[in-house]
């Protein structure tokens, strides 16, 4: 028998207490309490240190150390330590997130023109009921509910707790609801789709006492949505006196302006980068 073994046997026979070792489970699901057996006798101090807790309590050796469910709600690394009067023994374990139960959903932008490719993007973070990021793969459904027509669905596998998607805006203006869903949790967000640039811009002219009154047909985008009132339309006339441009806002869907015209003039129309038709009028001499 070695000297070390003899010393150890002597100490055991003499009743000297050693700090009992703790054996927590290697992995615990958040919010699940558990117990750890201890050996020996007498009192010891138990410590549980985790991302959001630091607990110190006296325990009786030989009895189980109970860890409450509320003490392991945050995912991450924990230290369980048991200290007697002269030494400590500690172990580490990990708490992992439970099943998906909550979502944090960001949808961008809040206003978007219709029929724009990749114009809408959404990011959803998947949490368990204690707001721990769920790292196990889960499926997030993004449902797009339009004012008319059937809802559209995009299903995305969340990686490392995050699911994201990108989609075009739909052709109709108005509010569009996007609902992110994982298991029983869902988060709705609403974005406003607005008409895009004017399309097929057309003008007609009629003579007035002062010149020529030019007005557009109802101004719509390429999907048939009315371009909002206030959008500026530019009318340009070129006659023998030169070039005149008048900017006019759309009112009740139509933009109109009176242009002073001398002799024959060419009148054109534009809104933003969109050109409309061109007409020729004969003015007063």
């Amino acid at each position: 028998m070695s000297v070390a073994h003899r010393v150890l046997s002597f100490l055991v026979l003499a009743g000297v207490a050693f700090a009992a070792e703790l054996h927590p489970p290697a992995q615990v699901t958040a919010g699940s309490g558990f117990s750890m057996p201890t050996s020996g006798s007498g009192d010891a101090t138990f410590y549980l240190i985790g991302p959001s807790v630091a607990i110190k309590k006296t325990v009786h050796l030989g009895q189980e150390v109970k860890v409450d469910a509320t003490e392991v709600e945050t995912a991450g690394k924990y230290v369980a330590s048991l200290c007697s009067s002269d030494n400590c023994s500690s172990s580490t374990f990990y708490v992992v997130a439970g099943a998906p139960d909550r979502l944090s959903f960001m949808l961008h932008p809040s206003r978007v023109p219709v029929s724009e490719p990749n114009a809408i993007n959404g990011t959803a973070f998947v949490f368990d009921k204690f707001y721990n990021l769920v790292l196990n793969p889960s499926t997030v459904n993004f449902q797009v509910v339009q004012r008319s027509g059937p809802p559209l669905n995009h299903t995305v596998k969340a990686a490392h707790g995050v699911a994201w998607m990108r989609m075009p805006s739909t052709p109709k203006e108005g509010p569009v609801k996007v609902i992110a869903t994982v298991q029983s949790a869902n988060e709705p967000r609403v974005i406003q789709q607005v008409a895009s640039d004017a399309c097929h811009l057309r003008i007609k002219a009629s003579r007035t006492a002062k010149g020529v009154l030019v007005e557009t047909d109802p101004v719509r985008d390429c999907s048939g949505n009315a371009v909002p009132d206030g959008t500026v339309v530019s009318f340009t006339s070129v006659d023998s006196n030169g070039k005149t441009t008048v900017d006019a806002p759309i009112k009740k869907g139509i933009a109109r302006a009176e242009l002073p015209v001398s002799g024959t003039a060419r009148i054109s129309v534009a809104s933003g980068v969109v050109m409309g038709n061109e007409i020729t009028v004969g003015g007063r001499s």
Partner: protein
Amino acid sequence: MKHRRLLLSAALIFAVLCAVAGRIRVLAAEGLPDVRLNADSIAPRSIEELTGRNVTRDYAYAWRDLALALNRNQKGMLNDYFTGFAKDDFANRIADQARSGLRTQYVDHGHKVKAFFYSIDGSAMQLIDQAQVEVRILDGDKVVHQENGTQTYLVLMTPGADRWFVRSIQALNNASDF
């Protein structure tokens, strides 16, 4: 002669003050842990150079503040670089530590950080951090637990007005899929 002496003294004092101020700046810089960011495989949005620099800087500040806050049990030190769940969780731990007479010491040997997710709208970035940190948990002066090694953290950072905040930081057991 008297004027020359005064000028010489003033110059000497000025030089000493400059040296002290410079030293303070150096010490402050030395107080920051070493953070190396790799964003080569970030998606779906690419990272701008300035953003990468800012994230690296602010993540280093966050670890410096966390180490100080957990050692001194001052949760106010989390205000500058933590927000959301990360801030709430550490604040709870600090309150518990203070009640129980515990504190945690970090000796930070650096972080190898890989940025792998940056949302399209730029509102969130996920990082995986291989941190070399020595940890000591003390009850008064008694060491309750100590460890030294590499720990993997999954980190979520979000931008604020002038800096990036740590919103979530979670130690991982198995980081093989990153």
